[in-house]
C-alpha cells in the first residue's frame, strides 16, 4: 500500500546500539581489535578469558562476539556453546591462529557466523562484523515483530480467531457466515474487531501478520463474549 506504512511494523521496540565483544587471551590482540572497532564507531568490550566474558550480565543484546579459538582455560568452542544457551542469537565470529579444519567445521555446525584466520585484514574483519550485526538486527527485529503479532492475536476471542482463520483462507464474509452459521452482519462486526485489535493496516497486512506468527493463534477461552 504505497505511502502507507503498515502500523504493525512501526511498533517494534527501539534496539540499543550494538556492542562488539572481543574475547582473546592475547592482550595486545585485544587492544588492536578495540582500536579497529572503536574507530569504526562500534562500542567495544574486551575480555581476556571466556569465563570473564560469560560473567557479564545481559549478553542477550544486539552485537557480535569476536572469539579466539585457542585460549587457556575455556577454549573458544566451549565459550560458544555456553553463550548459545544464554544468547542464542548473538553472532560469533571465530578468530584462529592456525586454521584447523575440524575446529572450523565444529564451530560452523554450532552456528558460528564466520571463521577468520589470523593474521586478518582490518577492513575485511570489520565488514564481517558489521554484516553479522546487520543479520542479527534483522533477525531480532523479525522475532520482535513476531512476538508483538502473537501478542495481538492472543487478544482475539475464540470466535474472532475462527473468523480470522477463514479470512486467511481467503473466504468472503458471506462464505464465512454460511460456514460458521450466523448473519453476514455479525461476521462483518467480527472482522472490524479483528482489524482493530491487531492494528492491521489492511487485509493484506492482517494476513501477513497471521502467517508470520505461524501456528494458529491460541483461542482465548476467557475472552469476551461472542456476539
Amino acid at each position, binding site marked *: 500500500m504505497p505511502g502507507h506504512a503498515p502500523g504493525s511494523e512501526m511498533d517494534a521496540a527501539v534496539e540499543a546500539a550494538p556492542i562488539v565483544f572481543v574475547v582473546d587471551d592475547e592482550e595486545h590482540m585485544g587492544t588492536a581489535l578495540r582500536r579497529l572497532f572503536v574507530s569504526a564507531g562500534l562500542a567495544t568490550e574486551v575480555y581476556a578469558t571466556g569465563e570473564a566474558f560469560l560473567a557479564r550480565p545481559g549478553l542477550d543484546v544486539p552485537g557480535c562476539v569476536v572469539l579466539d579459538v585457542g585460549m587457556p582455560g575455556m577454549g573458544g568452542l566451549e565459550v560458544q556453546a555456553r553463550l548459545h544457551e544464554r544468547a542464542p542469537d548473538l553472532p560469533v565470529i571465530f578468530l584462529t591462529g592456525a586454521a584447523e579444519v575440524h575446529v572450523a567445521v565444529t564451530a560452523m555446525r554450532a552456528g558460528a557466523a564466520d571463521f577468520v584466520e589470523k593474521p586478518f585484514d*582490518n*577492513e575485511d574483519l570489520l565488514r564481517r562484523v558489521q554484516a553479522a550485526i546487520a543479520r542479527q538486527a534483522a533477525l531480532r527485529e523479525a522475532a520482535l515483530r513476531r512476538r508483538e503479532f502473537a501478542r495481538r492475536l492472543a487478544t482475539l476471542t475464540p470466535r474472532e480467531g475462527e473468523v480470522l482463520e477463514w479470512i486467511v483462507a481467503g473466504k468472503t464474509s458471506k462464505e464465512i457466515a454460511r460456514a460458521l452459521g450466523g448473519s453476514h452482519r455479525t461476521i462483518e462486526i467480527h472482522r472490524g474487531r479483528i482489524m482493530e485489535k491487531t492494528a492491521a493496516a489492511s487485509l493484506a497486512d492482517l494476513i501477513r501478520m497471521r502467517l508470520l506468527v505461524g501456528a494458529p493463534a491460541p483461542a482465548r477461552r476467557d475472552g469476551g463474549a461472542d456476539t
Partner: protein
Amino acid sequence: MPIAIACPAPTGAAKGGVRAAPALDAGDTMEATLRALVDATPTATLLFDAGQRVHYANPAARVLARLCAPEKGDRPLERVADWHPELLSTGALHLCSLHGSWSGEVILGIGRGQHKILLVHLSRIGPERFGMTVRDITQESVRESELHARNAELEVAYEKLQGAQEQVMQSEKLASIGQLAAGVAHEINNPIGYVNSNLSTLQRYISQLFSAIQSYEAALAEGAGPAATDAIRQKLDLDFLVADVPQLLSESREGIDRVCKIVRDLKDFARKERSEDWVKADIHRGLDSTLNIIWNELKYKAQIVRTFGDLPPVECLPSELNQVFMNVLMNAGQAIKDQGIITVTTSVAGGRVRIDIGDDGEGIPADVLPRVFDPFFTTKPVGSGTGLGLAISYGIVSKHHGTIDVSSTPGQGTLLRIELPIEQPR
C-alpha cells in the same frame, strides 16, 4: 711291530667296526681294538712307506680314494700316487721326514672342472714309514666362503641400515617439525595478527594527522585564534591519537620481537647437524628454546616448573638433544588430560648431568612400561603417534654415552631421567 699290509675289504672293515669291543688288557686285543678304532674313524687314514706303497688304508680312506679317482673303480690302489697324483707332493713328504710331520690343504682336480679341497696331515711314524690322515673339507670351504660372502653382504646391509636409520631420524625430526608447524604457525600468527592490524590502524591515524596539519596550516594562514585550533583538535580526536600512537608502536614492536624469537628458536632447534658437530653446549639453553617452541602445545594444559641447577657445558650434539627434550616434553603434555604440571629439573649427579622431566599425567601401566622405548610402540590413536619418539630419543642419548630411564605410577605421573656425561669418552 709289523702291521698287516693287506687292505681289508670295506665290508670286512665295516664288520670289524661293529665287532664288540674286546677287553683292553691283552696285547693282541689292544692291537685289534686300535685297529677297530682306526677302521671306524670317519677320517681317511693310511700308512705307507718311503716308496709310497700303501700298507694300510681304513674304509674312509678308500671311500675318499674313489672320490678322488672315480674312473679307477674298485681296482687296488697300491701306491699313494695311484689315488691321485697330486695328493702327496714330494715336498710335503720331504718336509715330513725332516720335521716329523706336515699338514696343509691340498686342492685336487677331479675332472669335469670339479675340485676337492683336502686337509692333509702327514706324520713320520717310524723309519721309512708314514701315516697320513685326509679330511675332505670341500663342503666346509664352500660353506666358509659362503660365510665370507654372507658376511660381506651383511656388512653392506648394515651400512645401508645405518644410512636408513639416519634418514628415519631425519624424517622423524621433520615429522615432528611438521607437527609443530601448526603450533608454531599459531604462535606466530597471533603477534603477526595484531601487528598487521595495528599497521592498518596506524595508516588511518597518519592520514588523520596529515589532515590535522593541513587544517592547522589553513587556520594559521587565516590567522585564526585558539578556538579554531581547539575545534580541529577535537574534530580529529588528536588527543586520542597522540596517546595511542606510541602505545600502538610499542605493542607492535613487542609482537615483532616475539616473532623474531620464535624464528630464532626454530632455527636453533632444527639445525641439521653432522655427527662431527660435537660442541660444548648449555643444556638449559636447549631446554628453554625447546620449551618455547612447543609452548603452544603445552600452555593450555600445563604449568612448567623449571628447577635448573648449576650445569657445566656439556659436550653434545645440541639439536639432537633438543629433539630428545621435545619428544619427552610432548609426551608429558600428551599424558596430561586436563590441567597439570610438568617439571624440568637439572642437576649434576655422579659426574654426570641429569635432566629430569616429570609430569603428573595419566602415567604408564606396568605392562606397557617395558615397551615404551620400542620403535613404533604407541598407545596413541592411529595417526596421532608414530611411536618413534622415545625410540629415537634412546638412540640419541646412547650416542651421547648417556642413559634415559622411565619410571611411572599409573594415575600419578611419569618421570623421564636423562643422564649425560659432561665429556664424551675419547
